[in-house]
Each structure stands twice: as structure tokens, then as C-alpha cells.
């Protein structure tokens, strides 16, 4: 299946519940985890670039974890 023919990612209600259970009490922001998980699929799907993903969450990840070591960091990205 090519990038162009891939269907857009639609949120799945069952996943929503499962993700809530997975992230409940994880000690970090569960809402951030859910949003990043959804957007990571949008990258694989071709709806979002790694650069957009990195920039979108960089500040939140740094605030939450004190670091941002994700491999999505674009070259020359200023921390």
C-alpha cells in the first residue's frame, strides 16, 4: 500500500479505552501519551512529518520528562 492510498487515521473508541487503562497511573501525563500515540500513527500513515511531530511536542515532553530524547529530532533543531 502506498503512502497516497493509505486511509486517514481515525480514532478507534476501543483504543481510546485501552489507552486510558494503559496510561492510568503511569506517573506522567496520560493525555500527552495519548495524543503522542495518535500522532505517531499519523506519521506512519503519512499525515504528519517527524519534524512536525517533534516540534509539536518538544516543549511538553521537556516539561514532563525533563528531557526530549526522541529520535524524531530534525537535524539542526534548536533545543
Amino acid at each position: 500500500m502506498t503512502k497516497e492510498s493509505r486511509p486517514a487515521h481515525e480514532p478507534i473508541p476501543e483504543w481510546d479505552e485501552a489507552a486510558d487503562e494503559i496510561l492510568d497511573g503511569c506517573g506522567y501525563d496520560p493525555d500527552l501519551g495519548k495524543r503522542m500515540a495518535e500522532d505517531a500513527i499519523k506519521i506512519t500513515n503519512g499525515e504528519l512529518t517527524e519534524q512536525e511531530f517533534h516540534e509539536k511536542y518538544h516543549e511538553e515532553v521537556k516539561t514532563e520528562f525533563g528531557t526530549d530524547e526522541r529520535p524524531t529530532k530534525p537535524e539542526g533543531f534548536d533545543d
Partner: protein
Amino acid sequence: MTNYGLVIDQERCIGCHSCAMSCKQENNVPMGQAWNRVLTVGGDHIDTPEGSYPEDGDDGTLEMSYQPTACQHCENAPCVKVCPVNATYKREDGIVEIDYDKCIGCRYCMAACPYNARVFNWDEPQHRPEEGTGDVEERPQGVVEKCTFCSHRVEEGLDPACVVNCPADARIFGDLDDDGSTVSKYVAEYDTNRLLDEKGTDPKTYYIQGEMSPGRPWKGKELESELDEQPTPEEADDPDSEESMRRATADAVWGDD
């Protein structure tokens, strides 16, 4: 470059759970956890058939086929992209691995994995026997773990435990970047399916459906690349033949390792 992948021939798989058990044993997977699960296709639950029971004298349509499922070692892995501390990473040889010393247990990777391939050690891991099993150190409480493609074996020139212990030769492991490897040939020759292909994760596990392949065409525990001679896949075995049954039973009882 090497790019490891797995082919699972669902036409050969007999649903015996040997892969699941040998995975658990080899990798010291804690009680209550599984890295490799043998799902059934079409049924409502794991281990339920699809179709309907015979009614009013008809034959019914019950059917059971199997889909062993573990980490798919996605090329474009969502779990890797979300890990804030880079504990989950992709190796040069395509294996997606977790650095358990780095993992902080945030479980973001679990939420991002569309294959439900990861498990979290909620409690102190327990093993039977207590000292554990296999050749891999236990992982502590509070980290995520999953299939490693048995990287500790692969680094020693050995096929993964689940591959060696499949009595139906339904699992074939090898280098997808080598056109001459059995995995590459089977992907080219047979109808294969990758789970959730439409998500673009580019999984490295291919499922053969439709026509049965000859399966893993060599005995022993070595990786294909370690063999002196290239194995030549013969005609597919008839899994119901007496010889196949005898061999499957002997392998399952005595092991091949």
C-alpha cells in the same frame, strides 16, 4: 545491510503454542505475561473458532486458523517515535529493542503500539522455577518488555527460539535485505499479508495465507546465514502426512535444540 524479518506460514501453523511456550521459556518472561500469543482468526476471543456450530443436521461452518502475534519489528515503529528517553530504539539490523536501564515506565510506547505487542511489569516479576528460565536476565518491575527477535541468540548465529521449536516449520527467520534468503524468496513467491498494513508501520513479520510454503527448509538451530550450503526448499510437506505428524510429535516432545 542486514534487515531481519520473520515469515509465518499460517497454512502450516497447527496452533500448538510451541512458539509461545518456547518464547516464554527462552526469554524468562514473567508469570502472567506473554511476548508471543497464538491468536485465532475470526473468533470472538483468543482460542475460539470462527463460523457456526452444526444445527438442524447441517455441517456447520466452524473453522480455526491461527495467527501467532508478537512484536512485528516495524520499520516505521510508532513505539520508537514516542519514547521520550530513547529507551525503545531500532537497531541497525532492524530489531526494535528496549534498553531496560533507560526505560522509565511511562507506557507511552504501549499506547502507541497498534499490535498490543508490549507488556508492562506492574509487579515484581515472578518466575517458575523461582530462579527463572532460559538465557536472558529478568527485567525489573516498572519497565515495559516485548519480543526481541531473540537478539541474544541471533548475535550467536542462532535462530530465534520460537522458530527452532515450531514443530510445523511454519516460522522462518532471516535477512529481508538478502534476495537469496528464504524469507525474501517466500515474501516474493507467496501471498503474504502484514498486520495493519494500511497504517504504514512497515512490519517485518509477513504472514503466508492461501498456498502453503515448504516452511523452514533446514533443520537445526543455526541462522540460515550460518549454514554451509543454501537450503533448497522442497515441495511443501503435507502436514497431515504420517511422516509430518511423526516429525512434529518427536520435535515437540524431544525438542530440536
